[in-house]
């Protein structure tokens, strides 16, 4: 006998029907009576993900989120021993690496996971771009996603300085100098970032505040909207499949898709542990503001394409400062990137937009090409 189907719908939460719901535990029921989680759980139960030959790309968003979680956990752990300041930052990281049990592991995982997260984020962003996942009604998911991409680059840039080693010092000098090339407001931005005219302990304090307080708040805000929109609108079906009008197989999110994601996360975790154990992230030498820049110094790989772009610009373009032109061009490109869904009207109307596919591939090839060139140059 199935009581659940025969019992009348419960209108008054106090009016019994306890036998009917006896399957659910006391605490779950107590919470449900107060929070009304029913519709939410029903939504999760019905949530599904399109299953087709491009499905593999759907995993990179979840992968980025997983690696972000690793960053949050290991970042909080590092905060227990890290001490910002020109005279204590390097020493405290040294202490973490040398004295604290598993400290080397936590720090190496934080560094490696940061790199894998940025890699996964690039894949996620460009796969969404090429599958035109940004088209109406998902414009805001794209916008928050691109903003998150900028926030993550900010995390990478600010976190890089925190160990206060020689490489970090010059990376920050160069990076903030580039920001100084922005017309009109450049010098103000440079001083705002550095906390003065030079990169000093004051800059370290600012970058620390940025890295552990400001950027996390912004990231969590953007991420919440990003994820909420995905829950609300469901996963986009690629334009090419939608046009075929054939029904798309849908996979239940829980447990089918979720368990598949879990496998990916386990692989990522194993990769992280292996990388951190076999190739622990080096600490380098302590920052010495008077030492010359080491030979062959380069930014981290995810900034290499930007670095390479600026490096090969002539000193003067049409009588203007080459760096300034380059920085302006990059800023405009980034701004346009945010507004892609509003520019690609064809895709939003459900039509193919080969021009934007070409733009996407050009950007990918440009970034890969410039990165490789910068790496081997």
């Amino acid at each position, binding site marked *: 006998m199935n009581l659940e189907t025969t019992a009348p719908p419960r209108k008054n939460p106090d009016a019994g029907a306890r036998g009917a719901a006896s399957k659910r535990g006391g605490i779950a029921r107590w919470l449900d009576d107060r929070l009304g989680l029913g519709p939410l759980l029903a939504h999760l139960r019905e949530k599904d993900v399109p299953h087709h030959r491009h499905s593999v790309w759907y995993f990179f968003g979840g992968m980025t989120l997983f690696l972000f979680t690793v960053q949050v956990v290991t970042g909080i*752990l590092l905060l227990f021993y890290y001490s910002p300041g020109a005279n204590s930052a390097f020493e405290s990281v040294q202490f973490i690496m040398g004295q604290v049990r*598993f400290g080397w592991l936590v720090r190496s995982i934080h560094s490696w996971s940061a790199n894998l997260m940025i890699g996964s984020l690039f894949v996620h962003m460009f796969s969404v771009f090429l599958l035109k996942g940004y088209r109406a009604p998902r414009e805001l998911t794209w916008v928050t996603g691109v903003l998150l991409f900028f926030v993550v680059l900010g995390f990478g840039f600010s976190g890089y300085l925190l160990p206060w080693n020689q490489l970090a010092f010059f990376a920050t000098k160069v990076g903030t100098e580039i920001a100084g090339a922005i017309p009109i407001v450049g010098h103000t931005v440079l001083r705002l970032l550095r906390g003065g005219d030079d990169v000093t302990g004051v800059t370290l304090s600012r970058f620390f505040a940025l890295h552990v307080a400001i950027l996390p708040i912004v990231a969590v805000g953007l991420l919440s909207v990003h994820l909420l929109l995905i829950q609300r609108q469901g996963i986009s079906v690629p334009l090419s499949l939608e046009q075929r009008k054939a029904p798309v197989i849908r996979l239940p999110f829980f447990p089918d898709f979720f368990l598949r994601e879990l496998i990916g996360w386990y692989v990522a975790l194993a990769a992280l542990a292996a990388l951190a154990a076999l190739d622990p992230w080096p600490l380098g030498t302590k920052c010495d503001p008077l030492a010359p820049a080491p030979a062959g110094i380069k930014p981290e790989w995810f900034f290499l394409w930007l670095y390479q772009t600026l490096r090969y610009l002539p000193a003067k373009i049409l009588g203007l400062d080459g760096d300034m032109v380059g920085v302006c061009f990059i800023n405009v490109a980034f701004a346009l990137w945010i507004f892609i869904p509003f520019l690609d009207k064809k895709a939003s109307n459900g039509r193919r937009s080969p021009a934007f596919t070409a733009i996407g591939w050009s950007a990918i090839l440009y970034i890969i090409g410039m990165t490789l060139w910068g790496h081997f140059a």
Partner: protein
Amino acid sequence: MEPTNRESEPLERRNFLNVVLGAGVAGTIGSIGFPIVRYLLPPPESDAAPDAVVAAKEGELPPNSGKIVRFGVKPALLIRRADGSYGAFFASCTHLDCTVQYRPDLKVIHCACHNGMYDLQGRNVSGPPPRPLERLQVKQRGNEILLAREG
């Protein structure tokens, strides 16, 4: 009989898979949790505490006075009693670890946090402290007063 067997088979498989899955989850939690707990427990401190420290020059402390000095990372209290003899203790109150001080007006060692009192031998005589102060040896080397661990 047969249908029952057929019905119970998937259940057994399900149970088996659930056990495997549960073991995997437990293993994951363990292998992540163990390093985190070890990490959070502070590493053993390198024995920074010295065996002896120079606390004062001879004649620096007048009778009926005291001085807080550093003994490794902990504070120590060197007192000079009214009769000119020296005494030394770790300055951490045995009640709740506040730093005690010498009170020339009362001729006692006093803890301001909860009004604990010790006599000039470090014995707890009034207020909440449960035990005497931990004693240090006072030695003289040339014209320096040294503090050393007892025993």
